[in-house]
């Protein structure tokens, strides 16, 4: 019975997740089944290897960074709560969300939080700045070996130069927001979760 209690989703848990992430009940149960199907170790948590079995992530040059985003600092496992918390960033923004949750706190799927999630993908050392080296590493992941080092360096320089407004040779989060001002982040960083 004990094992069952741990694998089954508890009502209170659902409630809490609901409050925290804004997913509907059905979405949570659906995602839970996905979670359990990903969980090959069947211990209620996902490891990095579990994530890497997803083909989209395995192919993605930034897949590793995305997977990293699921894991809190210095941990190798993520439970369902953490899984949902990360996924909540990709919930589409609905109209009633704003009206409802203004008083409480900013929902996880707000534009800023979506951008923050993206920003963290590039901010490898979590110092809230994308430095030139971080950019270089990410670019290297994205283009493979087809571009020489100095060319890549010039891309990174140019990227920073474009975005940098305070002259510290790195991209801060506010600068990142400014850069992607015209990009439809709300739409691009949304996944249509099934109801």
């Amino acid at each position, binding site marked *: 019975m004990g094992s069952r209690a741990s694998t089954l989703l508890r009502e209170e848990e*659902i409630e809490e997740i609901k409050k925290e992430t804004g997913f509907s009940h059905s979405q949570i149960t659906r995602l839970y089944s996905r979670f359990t199907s990903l969980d090959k170790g069947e211990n209620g948590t996902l490891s990095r290897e579990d994530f*890497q079995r997803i083909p989209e992530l395995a*192919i993605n040059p930034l897949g590793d960074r995305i997977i990293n985003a699921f894991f809190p600092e210095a941990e190798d496992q993520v439970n369902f709560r953490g899984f949902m918390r990360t996924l909540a960033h990709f919930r589409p923004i609905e109209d009633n969300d704003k009206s409802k949750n203004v008083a409480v706190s900013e929902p996880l799927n707000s534009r800023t939080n979506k951008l923050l999630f993206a920003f963290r993908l590039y901010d*490898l*050392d979590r110092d809230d700045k994308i430095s030139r080296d971080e950019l270089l590493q990410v670019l*290297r992941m*994205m*283009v493979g070996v087809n571009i020489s080092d100095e060319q890549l360096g*010039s891309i990174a320089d140019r990227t920073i130069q*474009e975005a940098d407004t305070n002259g510290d040779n790195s991209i801060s989060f506010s600068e990142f927001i400014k850069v992607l001002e015209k990009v439809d982040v709300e739409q691009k960083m949304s996944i249509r979760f099934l109801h």
Partner: protein
Amino acid sequence: MGVDIGLEFEGDEDEVSTFQEEHERERHRAKISDGDRERRKRGNGRRKRASRAEEWEGESQARPERRERGRRKRTRSDQEAKGSDRDEEVQPKTKSGKSAKTRKHIKNEKTRKMEEEEGEGEERHAKRKKKHGSAKKEEREEDGGKRTAKEKAQEVKRKKHKKVVETSSEPSEEDDNDEEDNEEREVRPESLSSEELEKLKEAVDERKKLIQTLRGKPWPMKKKCVTLRESQEFVEKYEGALGKGKGRKLYAYKVMMNKKWMKFQRDFENFKTACIPWEMKIKEIESHFGSSVASYFIFLRWMYGINMILFCLTFGLVMVPEALMGRPYGTIPRKTVPRPEATSAMDFAVLWDFGGYAQYSVLFYGYYNNQRAIGWLKFRMPLSYFLVGVGTVAYSYMVVIRTMARNANESGVGDDNSFNFNWKTFTSWDYLIGNPEMADNKFASITTSFKEAILEEQESRKDDNIHLTRFLRVLANFLVLCCLAGSGYLIYFVVRRSQKFALDGLDNHTWWERNEVNMVMSLLGMFCPMLFDVISALENYHPRVALQWQLGRIFALFLGNLYTFIIALMDEINLKREEEQIIKFNITMWEASLYNGTVSVNSTAPAITIQPADVPRGPCWETMVGQEFVRLIISDTMTTYITLLIGDFLRAVLVRFLNYCWCWDLEAGFPSYSEFDVSGNVLGLIFNQGMIWMGAFYAPCLPALNVLRLHVSMYLQCWAVMCCNVPQERVFKASGSNNFYMAMLLVILFLSTLPAIYTIVTIPPSFDCGPFSGKKRMFDVIQETLESDFPAWFGKVFSYASNPGLVLPFILLMVLAIYYLQSTSKSYKEANVELKKKLQTQNEENKKKKKLAALKAQMDLEEARKASSQTAKQQKNSNASQQDQESDEEEDHSSSQRLHHGKNGRHAPPPVREQEGQLPATRAPVPRSYQHEHHGAPGYLPGFPRQSEPRMHRVPSLQRH
């Protein structure tokens, strides 16, 4: 109730199942009593219902405990009876089609009913099923006690409402069902808040979902199977249950149609994209070779479209009518192979040269008869022939100019790309890609686009010695001019010589002297482009501009080719016409002798015995011209394909496989793989098209041949590019519009229509072949039609309209209009450029200002801190940051390893690993961090290394609200 839920989770199965039964019963009872009351109240107005809902709510909230106590005492038979009762109720509902989930309000109540039924069914079965029911139960209870009560109340009310619907037989009542429903929906928020309503809706809906997602549950397989079957039945019922009564049906139908329409539209969009021919191929090439190579293929595709239409015109209006309705082969001399040629008319060599049967067929001008109207349709063949010839040219002009105008419009609108690189870096990957092949393409296209962007960037900020560049460019142009002049003179010289040789008689000369012109032409065509390529390296242009220069120069060279060809053709036409004169004279003599002979031998029998094959005939210079063009096209096509196979494919194969046993690295060294020659291919295509335009009048089969050729070369070249070429070293972004190609095409079109029109207008047609035989000029066919097919006044109007006094002012007016439009468009363009510049400078100024301000603020902060901070503290900080860096590096290593792990089985990883392995060594994060410290970058305060993090997050969010 809340306690019950807890029990449910911790307690054993039996308890759960009983609990569930209880729940079911509770529902049934609620329904029964409700139904009773409802029956009583049915006569009353519907208005009351809303208020009653509230009343019910209160009541039901008080009810649960009571129910719980009484629940166990109820007998099962009672339930069963009720269940069967309800089964009947539900049956009619299943009829209506599976319909939209959007109508959750209506559906939900039904869902609930179904669930209950299922539950009842289950109760009769084994315990296993009860477990499944309990799963559902868990769901049902999720909202907590209070809400369940409300839910029930809601449900009860709804059922009531439905009963009304079911029992009412009058159509009028059915009709205002919907109305009522709406009303109810509007009213409900008073009794239940929208949030609760939402949750209620979900709760009901989720039950279904849970059944579907049972796969993830840790249950035995048997149970899962049963559950699955049940769920399928359930879904069937559920889907069918929607919609009852006319209005509802209509609404459901509307919703369904709407959805279907949306889906259809989406599919249609996909279909449209799939219908664009070769789109995928071109995209793939673009991702690997850049937009310049892709621009060639797009141009080729466009050309194919044009030729398709030309082909349809000539095929549908000229060739098919003549073949179907004209006189069949062998009836008249022009449609028969002459006797001396008849023996070899079917030989392949002859046919390959388009002689023999091919020459005397619909493929060429000479076959057509000058009969005014043919067949039962009275199809005006000569007129049609003439109009198609003119229409072909007119259509081509129209299309080319329209495309150019459209492209010019497109290129005028520039987008804001001040964050070009950032966008490329941060947003280029498509996160939905799950297919390795697609991922490869995406990698390639990202790389290519980066390369293109780098090149643009390099070119835009290149500031070398301007004087040197200018000098070199002038020098290069001078050299090229010399080359062109030299080759032009060479061609002129050779052509003159060949004319002299021709007058002497070709038999007296050697092979070289006979083929001198062709050899010189092809040698020039081969080596001059290379020379130009070398010279253009001096100029130091942006590759896009360089390509245009290259194209222009080769174009000028090829014009020489065209010129010689036309001269040779003209000479031949003149020769043939002289021959024709002689033959014409001979024929009159022959006919006279024939007539005289027959008269003398037998006065009664006329000379019908002469076969059409035996009749002497003129040389028919039009067919000759057509044949020349067809041969030219064929040989050109062959040359292209063969050079492609040898120059690209064979070379690639040799380089690839000989590389294993060769002294030096063939792939990196001398021969290497070939690049795709954009300029040569584009020019080939353009000149080929010029030939088509020139020759199409005399050989109606030319467009068909060209369509075939373009089709084949599309596939062949796509394949060749992907398999044997390597991307150019300097991949550059071609302008999407390709107006330069179009401009060249326009020039060629003009140049090629000139001789065609000249021959049509000035040279009289042959006397015994073609649709215009017997006329003085080809365009007389228009006059003839006007005279005989149109009323007299029309001809008069036409003659007035073509009066020079009317035409000249009209042309003048048009020129003036063109001038006016031209000047206005120019001024608009200038204004546009000015505005763009202004915007850009403003942007840059803003950026600079901000930077300065930020720098100043930093300095201030720095000074303040310096004054206050202690040396000991600083020491500590530096230690801390160093540790930070170290830990970061460790993280990097591990993350890169993980990346490889994820990418197993693909070829990319090993080189990446190499690179990644080097990266941490080459990069120097430690000094950078110190730099930060010294400059006091914002967000990384030395005093509190971690404090900055939350602040940075919060700033934007505060701004937002």
